[in-house]
């Protein structure tokens, strides 16, 4: 087992060199790196999402996925959700099949060929699917041999999902319809999706990584996985520009727009045009990836900046909740509000925002800068600074194990 692991590692740099060429070939632009913005950035679109979804405030990019080192097995995937609230790339199996099939990717297995299959839990449900290695090209950046998740991989059906994975009574999100995107690109503040919480064999319960036999009777067991084989934030595997991302969303009219856009920039202070500059840096609680928000006199100490949330979500019992869509607020008239965001390093900034009636918003709009909704009014409270917060801003998401000025990551800045 140890020998195989080391062998895989030794092969790594070789594959990286090869797949740069391979990916360049499959995109018709194998000219190598330059300092131009096209190399370390990719356009973000805000639109209605994959067919029939009707997404709102959902930032999408296009990603090219290839079998490791194989330029003849590539697929361009549109409507990949950019998510600063998670780390790692997850593709819905239903979105594959147009150049790459799940079987084209390299399974992460034990010595007996048993596959690593992951449960990914959300507040509203869970994903289930294999962990495989793939090459990813995002803009001009290339991450080779990245462990990704193939959600809904038909080789390991949902009948195998462990009890601990469905210990939250949500929905299975292994289809494009249910999840709302063809894939999710987790560019959060962590390098792996689980980290040290998944490396201790004695404390795994099946709610994260599992090892599954591939012959009848198929059986899945909880398993500990080394960080190098966990689903990994592709940004951390770029050759350069690998210390985080910046999200720049274009301002749109407060009453909404049919579409919008912006740019996902890779790297912080790695190129002439991605400087941290005058942005204020907020250190995050490394145990949770959260910062502090004070709203209406209430401390919300588990707050976060999340492009994967499509509204401001915060507790305020004084704002009416819509009767027909209880995820959102429906104030009788537009509200002006503000809150203070504070990092663990003591940085404080006041953020002003507005809340408009969700029922009054046009169903044709894919961008609504004033969309907000209720969040837990508990002691364990959060202000979920969703996509509207990012509109008209440049927001920096800094990875763990890197530093931003005098602040150690994980950190955010804006």
């Amino acid at each position, binding site marked *: 087992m140890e020998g195989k692991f080391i062998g895989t590692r030794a092969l790594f740099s070789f594959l990286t060199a090869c797949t740069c060429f391979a990916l360049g070939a499959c995109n018709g632009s194998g000219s190598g790196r330059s300092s131009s913005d096209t190399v370390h950035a990719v356009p973000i679109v805000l639109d209605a999402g994959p067919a029939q979804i009707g997404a709102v405030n959902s930032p999408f990019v296009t990603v090219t996925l290839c079998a490791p080192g194989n330029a003849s097995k590539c697929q361009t995937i549109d409507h990949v959700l950019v998510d600063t609230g998670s780390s790692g790339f997850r593709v819905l199996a239903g979105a594959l099949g147009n150049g790459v099939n799940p079987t084209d990717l390299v399974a992460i297995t034990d010595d007996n060929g048993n596959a690593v299959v992951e449960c990914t839990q959300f507040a509203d449900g869970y994903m289930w699917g294999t962990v495989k290695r793939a090459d990813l090209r995002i803009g001009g950046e290339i991450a080779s041999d990245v462990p990704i998740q193939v959600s809904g991989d038909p080789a390991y059906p949902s009948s195998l999902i462990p009890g601990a994975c469905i210990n939250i*009574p*949500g929905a299975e999100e292994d289809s494009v319809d249910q999840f709302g995107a063809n894939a999710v690109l987790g560019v959060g503040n962590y390098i792996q999706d689980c980290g040290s919480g998944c490396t201790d064999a004695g404390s795994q319960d099946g709610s994260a990584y599992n090892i599954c036999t591939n012959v009848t009777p198929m059986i899945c067991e909880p398993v500990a996985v080394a960080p190098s084989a966990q689903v990994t934030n592709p940004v951390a595997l770029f050759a350069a520009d690998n210390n985080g991302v910046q999200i720049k969303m274009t301002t749109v009219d407060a009453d909404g727009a049919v579409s919008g856009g912006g740019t996902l920039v890779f790297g912080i202070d790695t190129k002439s045009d991605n400087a941290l500059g005058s942005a204020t840096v907020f250190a995050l609680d490394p145990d949770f990836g959260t910062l502090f928000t004070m709203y209406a006199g209430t401390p919300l100490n588990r707050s976060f900046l999340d492009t994967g*949330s499509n509204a401001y979500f915060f507790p305020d019992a004084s704002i009416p909740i819509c009767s027909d869509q209880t995820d959102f607020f429906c104030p009788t008239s537009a509200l002006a509000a503000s809150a203070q965001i504070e990092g663990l390093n003591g940085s404080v900034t006041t953020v002003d925002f507005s809340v408009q009636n969700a029922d009054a918003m046009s169903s044709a709009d894919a961008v609504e800068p004033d969309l907000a909704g209720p969040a837990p009014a508990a002691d364990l409270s959060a202000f979920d600074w969703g996509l509207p917060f990012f509109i008209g801003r440049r927001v920096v998401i800094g990875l763990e194990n890197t530093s931003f000025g005098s602040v150690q990551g994980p950190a955010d800045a804006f």
Partner: protein
Amino acid sequence: MQKSFLRFRAMAGSTLVVVTLAVSPASRAALGGDVASIVHDHETLRASDTVTSTVLYDLHEAQSPAGVRVREYVDRASGKVFALTWQGPRLPDVNALLGSYASRYQAAAKEHHGSHHTLSIDDPDLKVSVLRLQRGWQGDAYLPNAIPQGVDRAELR
């Protein structure tokens, strides 16, 4: 750096653990249930049960080896769980903790649009809040009509 690629638990033993978790019967669940349901919840966490008593309620707290903390508040008069909170690097068995209310959470999840990281139920008879953080989880659930008179909601942490 980890020395081994994947580290296994003994196949047979961990199968039994998984099966135990999978069949946690909702009928024994906690919210609105009695003390026996709490003991069951804590067994699935492999945690010990620490009880702190006040005049109006008993606070049962479980801390699992994996760092999951569950607190369940039991009305001393009725013997029923009226509130619970949890936090930690992973979820406790929320299905079992919510008991007969789990189906309402599931319905809310299916209707839910907007954030995979937060979900809340804000009904007159049931409040549930769940946060999926980048690292870890937090959540609480309580029955507003079952909070003993004289207990401040703010102390149910």
